[in-house]
């Protein structure tokens, strides 16, 4: 397969190195030989039409799926295929459909995020020695700090379910940050947000980067991606077809084909689209052509989607997208 990678200024050492990741479900290949590197201090975007295998790839990175082939390394060490160990190693994630602990308070949600960075076990919880108290106080302090950072400090005692949608997204990010990650994976952080909220989310992502955390983000909103990312990879039908900065991606014909459908005989429309500015592409996926592009892939991804839906019948909105 061919990947045209534009020259990219590396900001630092690689944090995440995925090499040759292949994920097969039965005879269907959802992710096919994808390489992806995220360097420290970088914001990398991952885009692609529906069913391109973005979330499947994410799940491979976070240990939810065990890739059929390929390795995922975090800061040079191969990641174990268990979600909690991946988090332990330093990769935190959010979910496409928000998965907060809805009946816990905002603060408790963030405290749960601290789980992998604290050690206190059953015995010390019962005995409540000075060490336990210190650790608990420190956790609370850090959690409050993160809530402050996300602008939710005044709602610490609210139940997570009672937050407005945008704040639930923020809380999910704060909760992920609580595990002190070196890399944050955001799965469609602006899904369902209005333009103002999206802009606020942008600010938040930059602020997180400024804390020295590398970010890999899946998005549909191309304007958001291009504003945000130092580098963007495009996944189509499980394959990475292009990776590079805004111009590289926008001018790549295969991207346009993937998003707008293969040019017809006359190819009258395609060049026009290629010339269009970012806005055109940004808006395009929301319209019809993406639907057409997604169709052939739909089958390829049906298997994991079906599996997901049997597992959590309630999260239908979540599986909707990757179907």
């Amino acid at each position, binding site marked *: 397969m061919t990947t045209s990678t534009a020259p990219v200024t590396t900001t630092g050492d690689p944090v995440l190195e995925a090499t040759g990741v292949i994920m097969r479900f039965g005879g269907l290949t959802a992710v096919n030989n994808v390489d992806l590197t995220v360097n420290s201090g970088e914001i990398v975007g991952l885009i692609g039409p529906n069913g391109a295998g973005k979330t499947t790839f994410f*799940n491979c990175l976070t240990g*939810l799926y065990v890739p059929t082939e390929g390795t995922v390394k975090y800061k040079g060490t191969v990641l174990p295929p268990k979600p909690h160990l991946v988090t332990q190693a330093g990769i935190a994630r959010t*979910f496409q459909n928000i998965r907060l602990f809805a009946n816990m308070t905002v603060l408790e949600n963030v405290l749960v995020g601290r789980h992998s960075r604290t050690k206190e076990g059953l015995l010390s919880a019962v005995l409540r020695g000075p060490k336990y108290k210190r650790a608990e106080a420190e956790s609370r302090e850090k959690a409050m700090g993160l809530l402050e950072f996300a602008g939710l400090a005044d709602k610490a005692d609210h139940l997570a379910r009672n937050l407005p949608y945008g704040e639930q997204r923020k809380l999910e990010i704060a909760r992920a940050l609580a595990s002190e990650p070196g890399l944050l994976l955001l799965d469609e952080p602006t899904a369902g947000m209005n333009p103002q909220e999206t802009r606020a989310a942008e600010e938040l992502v930059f602020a997180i980067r400024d804390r020295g955390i590398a970010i890999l983000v899946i998005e549909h909103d191309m304007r958001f991606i291009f504003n945000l990312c130092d580098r963007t990879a495009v996944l189509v039908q499980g394959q990475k077809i292009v990776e590079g900065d805004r111009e590289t991606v926008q001018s790549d014909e295969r991207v346009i084909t993937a998003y707008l459908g293969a040019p017809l005989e006359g190819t009258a429309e395609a060049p026009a689209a290629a010339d269009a500015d970012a806005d055109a592409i940004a808006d395009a996926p929301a319209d019809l052509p993406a639907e057409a592009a997604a169709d052939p892939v739909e089958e390829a991804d049906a298997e994991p989607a*079906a*599996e*997901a*839906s*049997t*597992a*959590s*019948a309630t999260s*239908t909105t979540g599986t909707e997208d990757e179907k």
Partner: protein
Amino acid sequence: MNQLPQQLANGLILGALYGLVAIGYTMVYGIVQLINFAHGEIFMVGGFGALTAFLALPGGTTLWIAIPLMLVAGILVSVLVAIGAERFAYRPLRTAPRLAPLITAIGLSIALQQLVFSFYPDAKKARVFPQIPGSPFNIAGMTIQRSDLFLIVAAPVCMLALGWFVTKTRSGRAMQATSQDPDTAKLMGIDTDRIIVMAFAIGAAFAAVAAVAYGLRTGQIDWHMGFVLGLKAFTAAVLGGIGNIYGAMLGGLVLGLAEGLATAYIQHVPGMQLFGGGAWKDVWAFVLLIVVLLVRPQGLLGERVADRA
């Protein structure tokens, strides 16, 4: 003396019984993800329904007439109880957390047992159930009771009928669709409420068939017979892969065989002399369940059911 054929025959007959009851668990679980704890009791009331029909017939009625009538009565009672339970106990809780319907099922199970125990005349002890008279058959070293003939005929017939229903009829296909994705099925115009009721009803009907077979086989039925048998049948359903109707029957047969063989042979295993015989067969069935969950949690024919994102 080689007792292997006899043990195999016993195991298969017992296993077919488990399998028939297991189908009820598997169908309901496949569609609403509920362990219908009261299913063992639905089996039990089916037995009492059949017994009532027998009592209502004039004395001396030939069993050729009595058994079909008993079967009809048993199925009627079981199905009515199952539909009633679904309508009034489970349906209002369909959106509640998992624990709520499960606890309702336990309450229902206890209540049904106690209703029969307290109110069915003379049900505080086991009640005599008719048996098919005549000497047992001897085939190739196996002794088969005449009463078991009913089950030997009924189990395959039931399975074939169910297989035909699920794959060939509109309702059967709707049922499969609902079990795969209830929400989408609903969007496709399938009346999921009706499908769920149907799953309960079919499971109950099979349980009633099993209850008649059980009564004929043991010569008696009692208010408590649903508990252990229900547990075994659930084990069979898990063994075969819960949600899979053929798996349920297969699981039942495997479980029956395992019990039969354990009863006969465990005591010959060095160091296990004291753990053989009928007293321990339930324990071995349970051990089998644990081993299956460890080795192949999805069951023999099942697909992966572990929670995933």
